[in-house]
């Protein structure tokens, strides 16, 4: 019998609808994988097998009653623990929110449940989504299911911040998961673990009920094993929501039905500024492979320039911490979460003690940077300047899209690194987002698809960046690469 946990979202949906197996059987199989891997991978902060079974039973009953099934009927998924889930602890992987049980459901997760998906659990992440390796979680590191082929046993980073999501999908603990992307937090972990993930245009997915990091950048999106599954998930997750003032009031296209790997007449831009000195040979080669595959799919390849690329990272590391310092002001020990009240302390002392005890080192670092760049006397030099540079970065893309339809670049400058390898120096960790941050600053749809393995036997991802609202163009170029890369590698089960 087929191992149900090897099936894609599309296959599960079709199999459940057609009666090849029940939703309950699927949920049971994934619940078992989640439980078996928890000790070794730590991908989940909380597992909710009962929620997965409950949703599955409801789908099976609906099917038996002949009711119309939702787009994700019978598909159990993992939910990044940044999405508020009613009655289920939501922590953002922080101590300050430990024990927080929201009284409401995030708009994106509600859409998924309404479509018939079930929740396997809440996935680990970098604390408040701040990190690129999942090493800043209060609930411990997530361990990538991948190993280098050097015979060593180094524990590798699953990427971040959606590291629980990437590890869980790659290890077949769930067929798909939600992620959020502020500067690359969907794309980089997808690349590190050999899966696909898409960040849609800013505003496509409602931010309502997602724990805020940097509100002008945060976007939810799906992570799954292939492009089609990403399209299926995104179609459900996206859509207008009056509760998010930046939500796009636009119809959600039928992305799955519109999938086509034929790129005849399309122009693919190759940004020369992304060709960095000392670029990793395997990354450079995978980029060349990607160019050849897109040509083979009928696309014309054109050289483009994004002149302000080198300023994207420093720009991001002003804007994102500035917004974070403001967003995280809400954690005060009064309304929810942790309270640390030293003996005889007044209100101000309580705030400071609570926040000192509740936030991890990276979160504090970013709050301090953000507070500094927004403080009197420095605001214009740092924050206003960064917002102007952001305009220029966005304008670079507008100009580029006059001569191309989609942009191809590596997702990350390297394959997965070992845990601890980059955590000593915050700047070195930040540099891992060099290829993903520009599209975030410009609010553009961008996705990562697996391109192949490097010399260490680790996955590399290729990134596709599209015009605003052109998720279809991004997905289609991703599909063209997927069809030619023939990526079928998967981590050997050691857990």
């Amino acid at each position, binding site marked *: 019998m087929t191992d149900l946990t090897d099936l894609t979202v599309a296959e599960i949906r079709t199999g459940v609808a057609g009666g090849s197996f029940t939703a309950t059987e699927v949920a049971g199989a994934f619940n078992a994988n989640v439980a078996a891997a928890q000790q070794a991978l730590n991908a989940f902060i909380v597992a909710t097998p009962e929620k997965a079974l409950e949703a599955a039973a409801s789908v099976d009953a609906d099917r038996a009653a002949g009711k119309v099934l939702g787009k994700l009927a019978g598909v159990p998924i993992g939910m990044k623990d940044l999405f508020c889930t009613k009655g289920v602890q939501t922590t953002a992987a922080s101590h300050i929110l430990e024990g927080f049980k929201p009284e409401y459901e995030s708009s994106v997760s509600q859409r998924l449940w309404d479509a018939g998906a079930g929740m396997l659990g809440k996935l680990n992440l970098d604390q408040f989504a701040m990190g690129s390796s999942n090493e800043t979680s209060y609930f411990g590191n997530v361990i990538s299911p991948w190993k280098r082929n050097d015979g060593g046993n180094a524990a590798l980073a699953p990427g971040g911040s959606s590291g629980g999501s990437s590890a869980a999908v790659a290890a077949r603990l769930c067929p798909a998961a939600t992620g959020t992307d502020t500067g690359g937090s969907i794309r980089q972990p997808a690349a590190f673990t050999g899966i696909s993930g898409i960040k849609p245009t800013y*505003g496509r997915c409602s931010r309502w009920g997602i724990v805020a990091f940097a509100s002008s950048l945060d976007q939810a999106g799906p992570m799954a094993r292939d492009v089609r599954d990403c399209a299926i998930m995104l179609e459900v997750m996206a859509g207008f929501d009056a509760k998010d003032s930046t939500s796009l009031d636009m119809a959600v296209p039928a992305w799955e039905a519109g999938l086509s790997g034929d790129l005849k007449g399309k122009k693919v831009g190759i940004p020369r500024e992304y060709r960095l000195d000392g670029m990793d040979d395997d990354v450079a080669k995978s980029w060349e492979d990607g160019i050849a595959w897109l040509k083979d799919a009928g696309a014309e390849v054109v050289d483009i320039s994004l002149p302000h690329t080198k300023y994207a990272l420093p720009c991001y590391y002003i804007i994102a911490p500035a917004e974070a310092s403001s967003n995280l002001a809400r954690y005060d020990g009064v309304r929810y979460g942790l309270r640390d009240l030293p003996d005889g302390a007044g209100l101000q002392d309580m705030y400071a003690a609570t926040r000192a005890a509740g936030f991890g080192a990276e979160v504090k670092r970013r709050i301090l940077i953000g507070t500094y760049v927004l403080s009197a006397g420095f605001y214009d030099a740092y924050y206003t300047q960064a917002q102007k540079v952001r*305009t220029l970065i966005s304008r670079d893309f507008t100009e580029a899209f006059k001569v191309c339809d989609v942009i191809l670049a590596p997702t990350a400058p390297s394959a997965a690194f070992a845990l601890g390898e980059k955590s000593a120096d915050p700047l070195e960790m930040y540099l891992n987002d060099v290829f993903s941050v520009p599209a975030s600053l410009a609010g553009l749809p961008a996705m990562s698809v697996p391109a192949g393995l490097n010399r260490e036997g680790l996955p590399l991802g290729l990134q596709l960046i599209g015009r605003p609202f052109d998720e279809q163009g991004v997905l289609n170029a991703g599909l063209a690469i997927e069809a030619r890369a023939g990526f079928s590698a998967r981590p050997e089960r050691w857990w």
Partner: protein
Amino acid sequence: MSVDIATVAKIAALARLKVSDAELAAMVPELNGILAWVEQLGEVDVSSAEPMTAVIENHLRLREDVINADPLTGGGKRDAVLANAPAAEHGFFGVPKVIE
């Protein structure tokens, strides 16, 4: 621009973060490293650019001007609002005494 211990202590106070002397000393070089790096933005000619206010063109909407236009975010939710408070009392958030 670089920061010293006194500046970091002041920022930490503004951010309501209690930081020990040892932590402060460790943060100074870290923050200076990051600030020195982001200062390269100063070399960009931004004379043609306005600061970005919205990354994707959108318009701000007004909700309907009626009570509980959205029942989920409207009123009448006291118990739900207080449900996660560390020290809710008598239907209010409990805080340490603030009046001397």
